[in-house]
């Protein structure tokens, strides 16, 4: 099993979700995050002082999937999130040795979906 972590633009979340559903990935967890990457920030000014905002708002998605879903999920995320512009985001894939469903106590591949 793998744990996929993806950082995407906030306004792409709906597209990514839809793409994942089409790829039959139905479960995920979402948090908001501030990202510091290649993308330039923007300037704000407040009461006469300018300052650069270089932590940009991002959405972080965590998806645990079985091995055979990994590539599909990655494809779906890319498809939903890609704009071809800096700031599109990044995907990290971790090994996931164990997974447990709290309700039933099931473990492993059964528990994940």
């Amino acid at each position, binding site marked *: 099993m793998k744990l996929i972590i993806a950082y995407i633009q*906030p*306004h*792409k*979340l*709906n597209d990514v979700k839809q793409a994942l559903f089409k790829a039959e990935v139905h479960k995920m967890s979402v948090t*908001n995050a501030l990202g510091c990457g290649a993308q330039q920030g*923007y*300037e*704000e*000014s*407040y009461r006469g002082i300018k300052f650069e905002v270089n932590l940009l708002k991002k*959405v972080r998605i965590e998806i645990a999937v079985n091995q055979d879903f990994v590539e599909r999920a990655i494809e779906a995320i890319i498809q939903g999130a890609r704009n071809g512009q800096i700031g599109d985001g990044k995907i990290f894939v971790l090994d996931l040795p164990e997974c447990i469903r709290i309700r039933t106590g099931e473990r492993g591949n059964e528990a994940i979906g």
Partner: protein
Amino acid sequence: MAKQRSKSILRAGWMSVVVVLFLLVTTTVASAEEEAVTVEQVAQGLSTVWVLVGAFLVFFMQAGFGMVEAGFIRAKNACNILTKNFLDFCMASLGFFIIGYGLMFGDGNGFMGLKGWFLLGLEPTMAGIPLYAFWLFQAAFCGAAATIVAGGMAERMNFPAYLIYSFIISALIYPIVGHWIWGGGWLSKMGFGDFAGSTVVHTVGGFAALVGTSILKPREGKYGVDGKPNVLAGHSIPLASLGVFILWFGWFGFNAGSTLGVTDGSTIGLVAINTNLAAATGGIAAMLTVWKRFGKPDLSMAMNGALAGLVAITAPCAYVDPWAALVIGAIGGYIVVRGVEFLDRLRIDDPVGAVPVHGMCGVWGTLAVGIFGKSSLWLAHSGLIYGGNPTQFGIQMLGSLVTVGFVVLAMGAVFKLIDKTVGLRVSREEELRGLDIGEHGMEAYAGFQIFTTS
């Protein structure tokens, strides 16, 4: 307050009292005049106090509009709408001082006034109160008409475009309609009845919003590819709710202050009770309607309903009995719910409901004068249900139609022109990121984690 100043005033006041006493004691004719002057002064003073209190309350409605509009849109555009709201009152104050008042109340023809630029060359009193007090009351109304539009065009309208628009509506469009109805113009001469401005303020503001929002097109993501509306939920219902309370509060000044005089207080009592009853039934009716249709008592709709009741009673508030206010308000509450649905079907995106509340209920309130109005309450002719004479109703209908037509054409031209020159709408990217950062370079809630994908 300046001590010496107040002493002077007081000295003057007391002196006249002493003089009066002395004169009366030594009686004869001539002295009586002094006395009379004093009573007259107090009566004018009382009316001035009343109208100024009214003006302050109407000014405070600006805060109400600001909170309602900000609360009903997304956090990323909150600073923008508040800036618009704040500056349109500033612009209206200026525009109505320089040109607007003259166009509206200056001597002129049936279409517009032609005197009184910068308030120069006018009599020191107007309608029995000091000119300056009268101006302030009227200027606050003008600001209200201007700010209604901000809500309808929220979350996508360019800021400089808004500043230009707000100067034009308050210096030109609003005063011209105002002249017709309150400034001695043609509708006023026909006996058109709009006591506190369902037409002058709300129809004008509401239909300007309709034109504007139609030209602007819906917000990004408001309607799906299938045309189905999506929810772009307001970011702070408590703020919006506070705004509605402030508006209701201010509306007492709006309607009851429009008597301009107090005399023995019976008219202002009638206006005040009618205002309250219509707001209450508007809120209840809207809640019941939305509950029935969507299964939940939606607070945002109930609040819109109260505003609808208030808009609807604005024209007839001094011409009808309390029971009629109950009916007029309730119908307003129903209209607003159906109006919101109706606009969504037409895919006209009005984020805060400015068109149903101010436009539709403004028309409804104007017509209601022709239905429930009583000639014994100073109206030219009694309404439909009293004898069924359709004269007044006809006049109301005509006035409402012409106003709608004029506003749609005039504001349509204004918005198109602005669009061609400075541009009416911000870029898609700016809209997605929010106008607060794009137009003002600031955030409404620094430090708060706000997480939304719309």
